């Protein structure tokens, strides 16, 4: 189940590799034996129907919930690391992050420096410098002193991204980064992630419910259904009519977009209009 950029074996493989990840909540197995691999600078999207375990997989990879299996970042088994050390390798942004309304954009982004601050220490000049430059990169410097409660949806998403980038981790895990955004802002956020990925050679793993969007931006897709990885590969290999019909229960047509990537669209009951 390796993407085009994944290395197959070596413990020093760059990027993120997960093997046999399983999660049980209470008695119920939510995720079983899922593996994924994304090399340095690669973008892997986790897709699947509601309740397939996409978010759970991301949280398991981030080490936030107890899970079976092994996760390696640049060859380091991150589940065995102290949270602080792990947070320097993996940055995670949840689907709906808590954004305290009175906290300013700058203060929130500065939280991303937490893994570099000693337990009872305080932010160094370097932490402030990194945060300032991240805000500048994301065009947020003009927003720095604005409270989070005064931001629009697209601005919020960029602020969350800024916090994750301030962690300076090589692997970025984003849970549904485009949720609740309109079309234009979806594109802005995805383009932004893409540019950062290329510029910093970041490994990006996202869950995405929009299949066309996933096919547009990711190099590798992992299709989850019922807690298992039922397909993995390039967008062309995963976004196929039979696979989507079987696992999403949806009538879809898949055709090539002008750029050659697959375009998924729904087909109305009763066929096309006459």
């Amino acid at each position, binding site marked *: 189940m390796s993407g085009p950029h994944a290395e197959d074996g070596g413990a020093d493989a760059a990027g993120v590799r997960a093997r046999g990840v399983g999660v049980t909540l209470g008695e119920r197995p939510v995720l079983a034996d899922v593996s994924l691999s994304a*090399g340095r600078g690669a973008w892997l999207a986790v897709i699947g129907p509601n309740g397939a375990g996409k978010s759970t997989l991301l949280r398991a990879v981030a080490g*936030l919930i107890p899970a079976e299996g092994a996760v390696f970042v640049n060859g380091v088994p991150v589940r065995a690391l102290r949270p*602080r050390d792990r947070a320097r390798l993996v940055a995670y942004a949840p689907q709906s992050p808590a954004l*305290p309304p009175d906290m*300013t954009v700058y*203060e929130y982004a500065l939280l991303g420096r937490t893994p570099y601050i000693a337990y009872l220490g305080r932010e160094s000049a370097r932490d402030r410098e990194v945060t300032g430059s991240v805000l500048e990169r994301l*065009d947020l410097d003009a927003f720095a002193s604005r409270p989070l409660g005064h931001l629009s949806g697209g601005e919020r998403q960029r602020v969350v991204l800024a916090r994750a980038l301030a962690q300076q981790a090589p692997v970025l895990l984003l849970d549904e980064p485009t949720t609740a955004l309109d079309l234009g802002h979806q594109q802005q956020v995805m383009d932004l992630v893409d540019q950062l990925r290329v510029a910093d050679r970041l490994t990006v793993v996202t869950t995405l419910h929009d299949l066309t969007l996933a096919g547009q931006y990711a190099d590798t897709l992992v299709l989850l259904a019922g807690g298992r990885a039922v397909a993995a590969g390039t967008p062309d290999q995963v976004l196929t009519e039979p696979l989507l019909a079987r696992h999403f229960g949806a009538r879809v047509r898949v055709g090539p977009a002008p750029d050659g990537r697959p375009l998924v669209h729904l087909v109305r009951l009763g066929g096309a209009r006459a």
Partner: protein
Amino acid sequence: MIPGDPAGDPAAGVATGEDGVVVERPRQGPASAGGAVHGDPAGGPGPGVGGNADGAGAAGGAGGIGGGVGRARRGRAYGVASAVLLAAMVVGVLAGAAGLPARGVALALLDRLPLVSAHSGLTSSQEGLLFQLRVPRVLLAALVGGLLAMAGAGYQGVFRNPLADPYLLGAAAGAGLTVTLVVVFLGGDAGVAAVPVAAFAGAVGGVFLAYALGSAAGRGGGTSTLVLAGVAVTSFLTAIQTFVQQLKVDELQRIYSWILGDVGGGWEQLAMVAPYAAVSTVVMLLHGRLLDVLSVGDEEATGLGVHATRVRFVVLLAASLATAAAVAVSGLIAFVGIVVPHVVRRLAGWSYRIVLPLSFLGGAAFLVLADTVARTVLAPAELPIGVVTAFVGAPFFVTVLRMSRRVDA
């Protein structure tokens, strides 16, 4: 932007120059359009620490006040809080059933400073009143008020719940019960010595009981579940305490006056709680930054490398120790722990790094004034201090609650 071969030559994929990112400035959302003038000018001095918070407050209304608290503003907040506390203490020392001349008091206090010698002109009974009653009483009120307010702020951070409070969580009721047990069944000197320890055990026990009950009731309930559990625990523990009191009716008056609060304990009481107060205060102040990290939630705090559970546990213990120290010397004084941090947040921002120390100063000033009122309103009789704080605090709390609802909506 179409990713070509991302692992390949970056220049082939995205032509954005060396810095990598050139993004169009997005249009401003409707929420920010109204107050769009108050950003830092691009390229200005370090973002976020600039002194434009006043502009943000003016443009954004009440919700904007808690935003970027600049260093200068922080310093000003400490200055104002210290000045208010000092003024409250002066009033507290001067006011009382027996009048003391202000000039004489000032000189007598100066005389006690090292290297200063002044003749106060106070009679020896006036000196005794000043140094054996007024001064320790004001100091004890300040310490108790500071501890209660800071403990309230700490609980609010631990439980991410603005309604958390030493009283709502069962901490004070737990301490009250154990102290009552000690007073009733041990009595005498042994009882007095055991009071702080008993209060701490009771406070921690009360909070953990509330926490366990809240967790057992289900994770989905969130913060309100915890407060409801705390209320249940408080009622239960108070019921036991009442039962114990009724068992020992001859002790009733003693316990009753203690329950309603009293800061007239003098130097011995001060000395007794000082170590507990010092430890809890230092521990809590050191954890301000970590409480700030927790404000984005446990999972994200963990993702940022913080042991969320450990931080909560430590702050919880420290807040309970502070509560216990306060309860042990003063009885049950309500509303300080919930009103003061709320006011501080409104005036000085959200960060626990500033909310904790300012709550201490504010709580101290508040209780010194409350005690002064309690001593003077019905002079020469004294009103229990808890009555004064509840009388001022309850309506005030309702107002604050309404304001915060309106802003959050």
